[in-house]
């Protein structure tokens, strides 16, 4: 499972030059990895424990005394394929294969095909490693590798200045949150001397000198680290900022793969969070709930279809994360894994949404939804995919909510709102793109709008279908049992019906304003979008005025000051040297004066109160 994508990467980098060859190599690597994953999954079907392979990567003896835990620093490559990892990997690989299939035809004009496909293999390698890791240092290594590959994919169009500029956001924000993850791991290591999760978790409360504060700090750092890569609101801008400038395949992969990887890692880290305190867990749940609602609302006011879908997807991810963390709040309940199933179900739909929206934006030659329309007639396939995506995103959380959340609690109401808003937001994209007239613009003839090449159209369909199948599976307790080997209570039919009804209500609610007055509703969205834009702009101004500009100014002044200062010191030395020489030439008096000065300096320095 690990070697296949790595070998594909090496082959792609070293010997593949043509576009077709590189696509086939990457696809082969993904298929072989999927086959290996399914094989392992088959092997796990009748086992309760996973398969483990362990290799020593680094063993450093760093001390001969002190506590034993700190005498050695070990990073072991422990690959542990359990049920959860296998399912997560299968979802990741399905998304990759679907996007690769689409990109093979629709991404023909992308520059540097060999590089791009090699990066996809590198990303798959990183994801496989991350999902199979139980050692935190190893996990971070693979995580950072996958993160690096993601950045390079999102910034693939280097020649385009806009792409390069937005690519920097995709570098900085996740890199910063990755550093939070690293710092969290470092804090834990510095206190416990353990990186292996299976050894670390039992030691959290049994190690002498442990404090709740340490675990809280580590938990917050780890949570921010994972949330950044999951692109939860407000850490989503690395995905939305590159949605229009990155290759569509890169954007789709990043939007689909990282939530799956992130939520799985979050699930693995939750035993650490649980050991902090109840307040911390509660705040994490509240943060995810707020993130879910606000992501949906942001999506509602977004005027770009790909950004809107990414934000709607971020809302679903936040709902899943909230349910997962909520599940860990109560010992004995086992519905945490249902949150994962929700995120897994939404992932292929997110990839399909990005591809379909990209098809439509490219064909209609606009990124503004106000200028879109009539896709149902002119681009039926892509529009149908958008409809499927809206349904999949809306209902994907229904199973998890029915099992894990009481609809009468404040938490339930918040997540209900989030699901409703996400459904409205996702359906809005479909309705706006599909309905209404497509107006003629300068240098744009609506009659020339065509859907993407036929061979590429099937892949988004399959992704939507996979999403719906995963959603159906999330309603069935045996899948949840397969994921975590726990016993799961079945929710009542009424609970399922309620949450599906909320999603359907959201889908229907979107139709009302757009059906009655599409232009007016879009104008309202556009007007409302000014508020977050202004807030964002104000935030950037504050950051620029009080942090960036002063820092740059200080550095620039220092850049000028340091050479000026050392040049001045040099001149003074030169002058003093000349005076000394002149004094020497002037005879005994000069020498005596100089010696007197030096002697007095020496005495002054050695006198009590200066050195002692």
């Amino acid at each position, binding site marked *: 499972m690990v070697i296949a994508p790595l070998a594909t990467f090496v082959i792609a980098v070293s010997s593949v030059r043509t576009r077709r060859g590189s696509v086939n190599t990457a696809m082969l690597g993904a298929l072989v990895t999927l086959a290996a994953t399914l094989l392992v999954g088959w092997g796990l079907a009748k086992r309760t424990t996973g398969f483990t392979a362990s290799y020593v990567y680094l063993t450093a003896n760093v001390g001969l*005394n002190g506590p034993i835990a700190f005498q050695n620093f070990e990073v072991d490559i422990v690959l542990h394929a359990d049920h959860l990892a296998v399912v997560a990997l299968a979802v990741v690989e399905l998304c990759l294969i679907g996007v690769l299939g689409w990109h093979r035809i629709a991404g023909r004009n992308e520059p540097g095909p060999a590089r791009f496909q090699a990066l996809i293999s590198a990303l798959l390698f990183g994801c496989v490693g991350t999902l199979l890791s139980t050692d935190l240092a190893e996990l971070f290594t693979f995580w950072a590798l996958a993160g*690096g590959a993601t950045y390079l994919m999102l910034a693939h169009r280097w020649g385009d200045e806009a792409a390069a500029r937005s690519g920097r956001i995709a570098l900085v924000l996740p890199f910063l949150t990755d550093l939070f993850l690293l710092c969290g791991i470092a804090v834990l290591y510095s206190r416990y001397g353990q990186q292996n999760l299976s050894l670390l978790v039992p030691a959290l409360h049994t*190690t002498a000198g442990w404090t709740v504060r340490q675990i809280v700090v580590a938990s917050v750092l780890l949570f921010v680290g994972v949330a950044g890569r999951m692109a939860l609101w407000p850490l989503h801008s690395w995905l939305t900022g590159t949605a229009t400038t990155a290759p569509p395949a890169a954007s789709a992969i990043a939007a689909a793969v990282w939530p799956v990887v992130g939520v799985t890692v979050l699930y693995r880290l939750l035993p650490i969070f649980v050991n902090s305190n109840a307040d911390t867990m509660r705040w994490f749940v509240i943060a995810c709930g707020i993130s879910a609602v606000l992501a949906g609302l942001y999506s509602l006011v977004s005027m770009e279809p790909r950004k809107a879908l990414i934000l709607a997807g971020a809302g679903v991810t936040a709902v899943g994360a909230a349910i997962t963390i909520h599940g860990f709040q109560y010992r004995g309940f086992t519905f945490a894994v249902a949150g994962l199933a929700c995120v897994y179900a939404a992932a292929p739909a997110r990839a399909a949404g990005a591809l379909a929206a990209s098809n439509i934006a490219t064909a209609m030659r606009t990124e503004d939804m106000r200028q879109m329309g009539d896709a149902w007639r002119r681009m039926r396939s892509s529009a149908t995919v958008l409809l499927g995506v809206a349904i999949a995103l809306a209902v994907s959380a229904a199973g998890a909510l029915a099992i894990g959340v009481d609809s009468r609690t404040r938490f339930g109401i918040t997540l209900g709102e989030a699901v409703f808003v996400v459904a409205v937001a996702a359906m809005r994209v479909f309705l706006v793109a599909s309905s209404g007239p497509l107006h003629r613009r300068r240098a744009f003839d609506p009659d020339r709008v065509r859907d993407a090449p036929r061979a590429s159209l099937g892949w988004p369909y399959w992704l939507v279908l996979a999403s719906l199948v995963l959603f159906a599976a999330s309603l069935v307790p045996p899948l949840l049992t397969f994921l975590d080997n726990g016993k799961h209570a079945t929710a009542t039919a009424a609970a399922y019906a309620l949450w599906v009804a909320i999603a359907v209500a959201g889908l229907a609610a979107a139709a009302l304003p757009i059906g009655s007055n599409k232009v007016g509703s879009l104008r309202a969205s556009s007007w409302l979008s000014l508020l977050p834009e202004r807030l964002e702009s104000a935030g950037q101004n504050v950051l620029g005025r009080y942090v960036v500009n002063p820092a740059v100014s200080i550095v620039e002044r220092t850049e000028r000051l340091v050479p000026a200062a*050392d040049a001045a010191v040099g001149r003074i030395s030169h002058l003093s040297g000349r005076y000394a020489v002149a004094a020497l030439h002037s005879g005994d008096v000069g020498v005596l004066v100089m010696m007197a000065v030096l002697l007095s300096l020496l005495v002054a320095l050695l006198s009590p109160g200066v050195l002692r």
Partner: protein
Amino acid sequence: MTAGILHAFASQTFPSPTPSTVPGANIFTSAFILSIGIWGPVVMAFVIGVLPNPRGRYDTLIKQIAFFTNLMVLFILFVAYNQFQNFLPSLQYEENRQWLPAIGASYHLGVDGPGILMVMLSALVGIISVLASTGIRTRVRSYFALLLLTQACVTGAIVAHDLFVLVLFWSAATVPLALLILGWGGPRREAAAWRLVGYWGAGTVALVLAVAGIYVATGATSFDMEVVLKAPIGARAEVIIGLALLIAGATRLPLFPLHGWVRDVYSDAPIGVVVVVASSASRLGAYVLLRVLVAGEPDGAKLLAPLIAGIAAVTVVYAAIAALRSVDIRHAAANLALVPGGVTALGLAALTPLSITGSVLSLFAGGMASALIVSVFATVSDRAQTRNALALSGLAARMPKLAWLTVLAGLGVLGVPVMASFTANEMTFFGAFRTQPVGAFAVAAGLALTAIAVAVLIQRVLFGPPNPDAPAVSDSSLSETWFLGLLAGALLWVGIVPGGPKIPGTDTPLFDPGVVNQMVANIPEIAAPYSGTTTP
């Protein structure tokens, strides 16, 4: 003779804790193995210096002599490394001769864990610098003689175990380097040379004051590190000495605000000299901090630790912003080369066994990464005939080899996985969070800024739209590819296999960070912060 060596190679069965039996163990039982590493290049520099070279007829021969001298030194030190025994808390390959008994100075050489790693770095850099200097056409004899002298001085400062000898080698390294820059540097070579002399001279003065302070405070009987660094000194004196050592280290490594020489030297020195300065010569700053301050004055080190951590953080942040604002790509690379030094300093400030181990590995990895980023941008600017980042654009298609090497250099400075700097940074951060969490977090934030700077630089120079008005460009030559490839290869090698690829039939890893044991074993205080926090 060869048969004799082979026979000895086959028949040696010396018992040792780790490794148990090493092929080639004690092949060099010579008591002068470290002296050979120092004086071999000096002798060859003399030979080159007196070799008649009418109208440059023997230029190639001189280059070959320099190359094979360094190769031989590397081979000898490689064998020394292979014989090195990890778990001995004492110096190895020790040489101790009385030199100036009146003042207690002795010719005392020896290596412990960090020492052997630094010596290997120095030897490897020696070869790389010669390869990087193959383009030298004028006054070849003088150039390579001075390069070998520099090499000898750096090795001498690493292996010196007497403070008097340390100061001599430390200060002596400045002279040939300044002459090399003055004689073969770029348009601003005079400013670069004088800045180097000024800053390194100031550092030498600080080191002399610190050594004098230690000498006086310990009874003025000996300069031997074994004696003076183990003698008790008052905490206040340790702080004063520590401050002097910090100034000395900060001028070399370099750390903010004593980094004034970096920009001129890295952008105007010949590439071969840049390689030596950026990798081994500048790492001497951290090495002295480690050897004298951390190991010798632990109280002073503890008191100064927050200051050093703060300076490390400021250095990394400053370097990133300055690189981001630079229009000259060699200036940008020079600023980026400051980053690994900041990480090394953070590890030393944290004073935990793991952070110090990370720092020791960072001496190697950071040295390689700094040398690679500076020399690769120097090569790019040579090949592109301009240093202006605004004029350079879209070079990747026209110089693919250099593009790959540039990307690797950027990743090496950042410390991404599979690069040696990643392992070093990881160990440093993991160790630093125990005692210097704020400094560690600030350095991490600085690395995020560095990532932006690297991305902007690479995007602008390599992957932007091609500039039709830019001068013609060409890819790297064979020798340039070789020396840059060696630097990148070393980073990747230690990054992918940090425990070291095993020599067939042995358990001795190359570049095993565990060699730092000797250092930590002598400082029980370093492990103290952990006491009571975990169950032994």
